[in-house]
């Protein structure tokens, strides 16, 4: 029985050994297969799956491959599969460290813009680059100038936002000096924006005149008969002028644009002053004056209208008598015909006279209005320019104080 048991035990042991040998042979074959693929990644992954094969894998990697040819991303990924305390892990991690040093040397002389492009090109290196920036820039923040801090904060999007902001907060003297240095350029550009306002103002003034006058003469042309009295007739036109070319309306229109302009100028000045640490500063403003319309011209020509109307009555009477004689002499319809024609002629004569008188008057008023608008335009533009220039000088003083 003992012998049988021993034989049985031996046969079991042999079969186990055979099976283990067979499994080992199988594993070795698989390893050879992987080696033959000439692929470092497969080898490292194989070693991660079968830790017993790590020694052979290290042999193969060291003798047949050059792992320094792997990219940082590949090495970084493969390093994660093995701890640094194993020989394969040690090999991979050290090479990974060397790659990191290569990358650090490469990015050190780059500009931050180039570093951004680099990260964009190699997204897998973002955290590595970030780490280097932490160690280099992050530890140097107090040594960076205000402008350099701004450069870092704008270029390295979101990097150490609060720390940089806090550091910038301590640079008030630097900021003030910088803004004082540049305020002249700032105001020169502001001055260059004035023609925009001038253009808008002049356009409003002249468009207002064009439209207003058009409305004026249209309204006036719709009055068939003006009063007989020249003064009343002139007064009637003056009232129309005041309605159609209302100085207050024009002033309001201009003031709106001037206020809008000043609002934008002051808004920009506020931002500028804020950086310079100046809380109180002169603001640009301008009160648009009322236009002085010169429409009270000599209305002597309107007397012609009253005279013409009187002539019209006389002429009609004469026509009536003349046509009566003609009718008595001819004893027929000739007289009637002459009366009709005569009256018709009188109407035409009166209309011509009235029209000509009113036209001359309107034209005289127009000439004076034109001159008023011309003067007004020149005067207000000149005033606003002077105001802006003086105001800018004050602003400059505040910033430089």
């Amino acid at each position, binding site marked *: 029985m003992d012998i049988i048991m021993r034989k049985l035990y031996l046969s079991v042991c042999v079969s186990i050994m055979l099976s283990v040998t067979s499994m080992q042979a199988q594993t070795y074959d698989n390893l050879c297969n992987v080696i033959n693929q000439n692929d470092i990644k497969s080898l490292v992954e194989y070693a991660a799956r079968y830790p017993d094969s790590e020694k052979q894998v290290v042999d193969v990697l060291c003798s047949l491959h050059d792992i320094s040819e792997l990219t940082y991303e590949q090495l970084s990924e493969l390093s994660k599969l093995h701890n640094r305390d194993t020989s394969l892990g040690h090999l991979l991690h050290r090479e990974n460290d060397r790659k990191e040093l290569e990358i650090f040397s490469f990015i050190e002389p780059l500009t931050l813009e180039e570093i951004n492009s680099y990260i964009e090109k190699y997204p897998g290196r973002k955290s590595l680059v970030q780490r280097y920036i932490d160690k280099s820039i992050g530890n140097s923040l107090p040594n960076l100038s205000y402008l350099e801090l701004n450069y870092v904060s704008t270029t390295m999007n979101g990097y150490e936002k609060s720390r940089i902001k806090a550091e910038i907060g301590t640079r008030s003297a630097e900021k003030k000096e910088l803004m004082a240095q540049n305020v002249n350029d700032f105001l020169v550009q502001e001055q260059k924006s004035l023609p925009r306002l001038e253009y808008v103002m002049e356009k409003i003034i002249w468009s207002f005149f*064009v439209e207003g*006058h058009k409305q004026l003469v249209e309204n006036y042309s719709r009055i068939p008969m003006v009063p007989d009295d020249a003064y009343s007739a002139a007064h009637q036109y003056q009232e129309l002028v005041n309605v159609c070319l209302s100085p207050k309306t024009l002033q309001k229109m201009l003031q709106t644009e001037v206020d809008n302009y000043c609002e934008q100028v002051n808004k920009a000045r506020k931002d500028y002053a804020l950086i310079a640490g100046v809380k109180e500063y002169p603001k640009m403003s301008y009160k648009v004056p009322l236009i002085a319309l010169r429409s009270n011209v000599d209305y002597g020509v309107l007397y012609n209208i009253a005279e013409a109307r009187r002539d019209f009555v006389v002429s009609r009477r004469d026509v009536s008598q003349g046509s009566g004689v003609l009718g008595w002499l001819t004893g027929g319809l000739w007289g009637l015909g002459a009366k009709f024609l005569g009256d018709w002629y009188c109407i035409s004569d009166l209309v011509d006279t009235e029209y000509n008188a009113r036209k001359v008057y309107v034209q005289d008023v127009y000439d004076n209005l034109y001159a008023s608008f011309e003067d007004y335009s020149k005067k207000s533009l000149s005033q606003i320019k002077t105001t802006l220039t003086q105001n800018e000088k004050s602003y400059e003083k505040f910033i430089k104080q």
Partner: protein
Amino acid sequence: MKNLLSNKRCCLVGMFLFIGVNASYSQILDWIGDQLKEYVDNKINSIAGYTDSQLGSFGRALWDGVVESELQDKLAERMQKLGNIEVPLSTVSSLDSKYGLSGEQNDFRDIYWSQSDLTKSFVYSVKMKSMSTLGNGSVRQNGQAYSESIRQNLSIASLRDIVSSEVMDSVAVYSMSNASIADGLLADIKANENILYILNNHPSAVRIYHNSFNIDKLRRSPKHLLYWSTQAKEYCTLLPKKKALPDVGEIKFEIDNGKVQISNNGTLLGEMSGSSTISCSSLELQNYRAMPNTTYIMGEIEWKTDAIGRVVSIKQVIYKGNNVKCLYKSKLKSKDFASIISTGDNMKPYNPADKKYGGAETLLNTFFFESTGENKKQLKQAKKLEKTALKQNGNCIKVVSIKYPGGSTIPSEMNISYDGLFGTATLTNNI
């Protein structure tokens, strides 16, 4: 005279008469005149009002109405022309050229934006600046300090810190014969750390390092150290003890005329050119396990190995009627390799580099194939092809390619052809 006087009298009388008569007559005439005038006036008035009387009061009123209406119409019509007195549009349009602007310009927000941009340009004026120049160079200093800390971790100060004690012991032993071994090894490891891993994995490689010490390229080659310390002798224990190969630890590597000579106890075994070509000067080198990714040359025979040291192709130049026996002799025969590269009794050895033309029964040139009818037929076919090729071309190149399943050392297929013409004979193993 009397006539004259009477005439005068007559004239005076006549004059007085005339005056007297005339005075009363003028009153009459005035009256008559007035009457006449009144008559004429009445007549004239009646004549002048002839037309009006023709029209009658109704007609006159009607006509006056027509005249009044016509007057109003004509005035209204003519006064329309007053509307033509316009301010020239050029007063507005000329502003565009005056200011060099056009269209709506009253949205002044862009003035703020452009002023803001200018402000930003002052505040953010630093652009495209090298990171290393920031902070007056402090960024570079900190960055370099960080890099230096990593570099320090990578640096190797002494052998003892990095190699195993076993390796250290071997180094101590070989330092006795060559004092510069330790320093040389440290320098070589610094130059190529792969050596470190080979040494730690295989301390016997220290001996190979020592044996190759005079050849910089070899002693710094991990492939060389690994192969001669481990791989080369891998099958040695499987060979008959009586036919044992020289101990690889005894093999020396020396340089002569630019070629690396491989020798054992003063006997030249072969030469290495480059890092992957071995010219055999004996059969020993063919009986160690083949070096991976290497070309072995003997006479006009060439073997190429793959990454795990398996022969994957053989080329042999064959000259018609010129049988050349191998110059070198070996105690080992093909059957001695059965335990290494055969799977059973039914397998027969085959030497692709034909012994008739300089081939030998070496491990490099021996392959076991199943002794099947088909393989026998294919061997006959190969001989036929050889004959045909020699007959037609006088001499030819025998080309053998070998395939293996996965990582196995037993081939699954061997294709034999001559000059790439005349067809192919194929031996197979069903494994």
